[in-house]
């Protein structure tokens, strides 16, 4: 790596950088197109409060997507995030019997997320196991614990001040969740694109063995990334629980797919080594606008999921088809 790296922080090579830049621009164009289409299709779309409501579709998922983006860039994946949300939410609900303060509740949520992340990270880095299988296992394990604790029951009765994290507004139509999403976007942008740590994440994703021989503590960086992903799942659990005001074992079921889709749609290579936070941010808006628009047109949620699944495959397939036609 030479000094040109500093001026082009996103990618190692120039042609790839161009392709990547165009991906983000393309995505932005898609987002704007969807925005305009939606405002023509539904008279209810262009309303500050409706748009503000629409952000709840993606803010919690996007928070996790930021950390997941780093993890996927580093060549790993965490499919257990949605189950971590369930377990963290269950832990918060369980603690209600001790009448905890709001701060304690939040700390329990974040702490559970961190613990789950540490568990995944220890299995992957400590025992050298493939993260896909480990997190498929912990995906059942974490949600399974929620089921053991809750069965077919649920927790309700969160303190009213707690609901601020999911329903509160910072200023006018800017919700607390949206403000947190924006702040985290900046933090993760700086972390991945402007720090030494971010560079090591790319190095590991491009060539783990090379990174190891360059003096990067690969296992430690990966462990930290699993911790971060767990923590973000904890943050999302706090927001989601506060927004819903209740906990059930089926909370956030299937979110891992939408989060991975968001990351991949944002231009992160599923095999690791490249991707950017701005891409993920735009992808979050694209998915949020699409689901909101389809919702206004009364399209049922499960039909939207067809669209998301097709999006996930299409986003990866189209550039490859394009390359095949040219090459």
């Amino acid at each position, binding site marked *: 790596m030479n000094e040109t790296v500093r001026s082009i922080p996103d990618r190692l090579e120039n042609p790839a950088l161009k392709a990547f830049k165009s991906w983000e621009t393309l995505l932005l164009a898609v987002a704007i197109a969807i925005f305009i289409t939606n405002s023509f299709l539904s008279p209810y779309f262009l309303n500050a409060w409706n748009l503000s409501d629409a952000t709840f579709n993606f803010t919690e998922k996007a928070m996790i997507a930021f950390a997941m983006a780093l993890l996927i860039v580093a060549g790993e*994946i965490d499919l257990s995030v949605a189950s971590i949300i369930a377990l963290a939410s269950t832990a918060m609900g369980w603690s209600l019997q001790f009448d905890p303060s709001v701060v304690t509740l939040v700390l329990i949520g974040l702490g559970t997320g961190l613990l789950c992340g540490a568990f995944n990270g220890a*299995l992957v880095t400590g*025992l*050298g*196991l*493939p993260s*896909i*299988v*480990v997190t*498929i*296992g*912990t*995906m*059942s*394990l*974490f*949600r*399974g*614990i929620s*089921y*053991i604790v*809750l*069965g*077919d029951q649920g927790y309700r009765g969160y303190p009213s001040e707690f609901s601020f994290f999911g329903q509160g507004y910072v200023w006018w139509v800017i919700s607390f969740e949206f403000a947190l999403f924006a702040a985290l976007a900046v933090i993760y942008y700086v972390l991945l694109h402007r720090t030494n740590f971010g560079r090591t994440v790319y190095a590991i994703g491009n060539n783990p*063995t090379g990174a*190891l021989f360059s003096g990067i503590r*690969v*296992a430690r960086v990966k462990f930290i990334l699993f911790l971060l992903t767990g923590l973000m799942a904890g943050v999302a659990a706090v927001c989601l629980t506060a927004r819903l005001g209740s906990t059930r074992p089926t909370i956030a079921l*299937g979110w891992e*797919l939408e989060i*991975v889709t968001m990351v*991949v749609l944002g231009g992160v290579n*599923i*095999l690791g080594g490249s991707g950017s936070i701005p891409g993920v941010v735009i992808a979050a808006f694209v998915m949020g606008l699409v689901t909101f628009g389809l919702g206004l047109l009364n399209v*049922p949620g*499960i*039909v939207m*999921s*067809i669209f*998301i*699944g*097709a999006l*996930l*495959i299409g986003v*990866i*397939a189209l550039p*490859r*088809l394009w390359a*095949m036609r040219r090459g």
Partner: protein
Amino acid sequence: MILRILKSREALLIAVIAALLALIASRFPAFIEPTNLVNVLTDTSPLIILALGQAIVILTRCIDLSVAANLALVGMVCAMLNVAVPGLPIPLIILIALGLGAILGAFNGILVWKLGIPPIVVTLGTLTIYRGLIFVISDGAWVNAHEMSASFTGFPRAEILGLPILAWLAILASIAFLIIIARTPLGRAFYAVGGNPHAAVYTGINVGKTQFWAFVLSGTLAGLTGYLWVARYSVAYVDIARGFELEVVAACVIGGIAIAGGAGSILGAILGALFLGIIKNALPVVGISPFWQLAISGAAIVIAVAFNARAGRAKGRVILKRAEAEALT
């Protein structure tokens, strides 16, 4: 030779299963009565059939997370066909189930083979697409027992020599796959592709095409199970078998199929499925809430995968000991 067999994963699993049965029988002797064991086998049959296909997919370094959605979609199509044309003969329905399952599996396979998209992404995508399609074709409605014909629901339950056809099909499929894997070029190709894709190319094996056939086989079995599932439980709706793909993967991982491909046996996958099936059936007998099921299969996956890594690492021939030890950290 005998020592090697004794130390194998299959022998270990047989011992664990025997110990498990003995443990349950010591408190609840009725559990190991032949009629109940037949029930357990029948109950586990869908898992065994799906694990056969999944084992082959994992052998080729892929994973198929869409099997449960495939099963549910094919099941719904069969049920709706039966409602629309009650006179349709069962063999024809089975053929349709096999064919449709194969097509859904081939779709996964094409994306992996021709476009080189990672299998986990492909099958996560098709998992939601197939589930969504069930809603689209059924409009979210259920197909209930009273709408299905008697022959449609009766087929998997009909008994031959004291065993329901469902269990016979699992046994037949198991034997067929044991033969395919051990005695056909395609079967050996699955191992070659998973063990060392580069070497496989040089021996004239088309890696992508082999993976494609693994997905087709997995899809075909999922389609067959789709009909059997819907007929056995006499109900079809959007959410049947949701999350079942994880149990199938768990059965394979417990059975010693290495997730990195190329290692493991069909017998192991069958035993892994039986192990999970016995636990599932024993939980209510022993008086543990069925809500424990999910956490137990999750824990079983984690423990088994940790165990696989240990077992696999000891066998490898270490040439550059220090470098490899560091690379693994």
